[in-house]
């Protein structure tokens, strides 16, 4: 069964990077949104993904606002959310993890990093475990 990834970023370049990195990976399906509000629309349309990658600074609904709403609706408990951000200060990472993100990947990142995070977060119980607190490059 295919794993579904939702990437949420207002930068078309970042979305293109995700398509390039994950678009051709077997058993992965990629959906995209430009902000948190569009992400909820995409989830309505396509169903809940296996992993959500989300930027912090976006118009309409930013990444932290998305996480807050995802916590209220229970989405956050069902779907791991990974923050992708250029902000890498300790306080930024802490804020993201406290808001419920399962991992924090700093831009610029190596495309291979994305696949590694997906594999870790979708591993079965007893597998390699999740990536909470991961501050990958």
């Amino acid at each position, binding site marked *: 069964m295919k794993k579904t990834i939702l990437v949420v970023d*207002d*930068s*078309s*370049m*970042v*979305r*293109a*990077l995700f398509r*390039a*990195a994950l678009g051709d990976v077997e058993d992965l399906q990629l959906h995209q949104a430009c902000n948190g509000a569009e992400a909820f629309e995409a989830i309505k349309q396509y169903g809940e993904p296996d992993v959500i990658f989300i930027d912090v*600074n*976006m*118009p309409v609904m930013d990444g932290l606002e998305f996480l807050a709403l995802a916590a209220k609706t229970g989405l956050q408990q069902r779907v791991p959310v990974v923050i992708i*951000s*250029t*902000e*890498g*200060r300790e306080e930024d990472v802490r804020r993201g993890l406290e808001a419920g993100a399962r991992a924090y990947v*700093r*831009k*610029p990142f190596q*495309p*291979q990093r994305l*696949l590694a995070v997906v594999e870790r977060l979708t591993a079965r119980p007893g597998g390699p475990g999740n990536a909470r607190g991961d501050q990958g490059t």
Partner: protein
Amino acid sequence: MKIDRDTLVKAFMADSEENLSTMEDALTLLETYPEDEETIRVIFRGAHTLKGNASLLEFMELSELAHAVEDVLDRMRKQVLHATPELISLILRAVDLMRQMVPTVTDKQRQVPSELVRLMADLARRCSSSAGAGPTPAPAPDGAGAIAKGHGGR
């Protein structure tokens, strides 16, 4: 994993033009409404996205300039700095320079424009002069030397 760099460069060019135009329009609007928080946020986001996109292509001079603009806008968001005509003009100069730099992303022999160093110094000076002056204490500025140090990841 092989990434088609041409595809990313095309997306970078398109994204950059859109962001720079949005920033320019918003800066023009800011001249009339210098306290408008949403307009300041729009300009901040444009600089922030440019910073991230440029860093993804390892175009660090552009990323650092966008970062310097973002730092100034961050202080404007926090009302430590105010949108004076002179400050708006400085940011517009940075937007102009970024627009000139974007097409050089694929140029392996590209030179650091002399205007870049001056602008970075000017922007850093604005941040420096605002440190501790407003309601939110500002961190120490990076200064123009940040160009050589690479992206600090902030």
